């Protein structure tokens, strides 16, 4: 059990933790925007951590370089896609969930 294995396990565990919390948020939050908030942030970080963990496991090679490229691409594209979806939802007239509406 050397340093690389410990780092790999730590990164993968972090990725799985954030995937789980994002999925719980998707299932439990009340409306479109808060669900998007949970999955957009949680999944971005989880994918980044998992891919960096796989890159560490692979060591220095062409494959790990490709994995790092995918991680950077996901890190740029995923928040932007979330932003575009939430913007489209807001523009098409979806009202954000408010606590007062639930009481009345």
């Amino acid at each position: 059990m050397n340093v690389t294995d410990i780092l790999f396990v730590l990164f993968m565990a972090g990725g799985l933790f954030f995937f789980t919390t994002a999925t719980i948020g998707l299932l439990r939050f009340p409306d479109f925007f808060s669900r998007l908030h949970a999955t957009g942030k949680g999944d971005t970080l989880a994918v980044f951590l998992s891919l960096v963990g796989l890159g560490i496991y692979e060591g220095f090679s062409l494959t790990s370089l490709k994995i790092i490229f995918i991680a950077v691409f996901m890190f740029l594209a995923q928040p932007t896609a979330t932003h575009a979806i939430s913007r489209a939802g807001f523009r098409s007239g979806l009202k954000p969930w408010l606590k007062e509406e639930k009481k009345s």
Partner: protein
Amino acid sequence: MIQKSDDIIIKTLARILVPFIQIYALYVIMHGHYSPGGGFQGGVILAASIILLMITHGLKDTQKRMSEKTVAILSSSGVLIYAGIGVVCLILAGNYLDYSKLAKLLHVAPAHARSLGILGIEIGVGLAVMAVMFSVFFDISRGEVSQEDEDE
């Protein structure tokens, strides 16, 4: 008609990502006979990059870079490259798409000529697929315009 997005985040990121997507598409086309991929997949990725440009920067800006005439020329030249390589093999006394006969023309070993022939075929397929995918998307989005005009 697809309007230009007025959101600076989406526009900037699309502008940054489109060249990298296109380089990746060329990699998929060129590496098709060693790894998964090939002309069809690479052409679709190339078309997806232009469609991304179109849904973020609008129809007019994309038409300046890629007009309908260019799309028609690209799609027909892709088919011409594919069929042309096949016919050249026929002329050199082989079967249709029998790349090893290209060795006389290119002055290389038959195995190497086969690899180059597949590469040429994949470039042709990639060009044709890219142009046709884009023209399908182009026609769909232009169909919306005439519908709206009729309503008005």
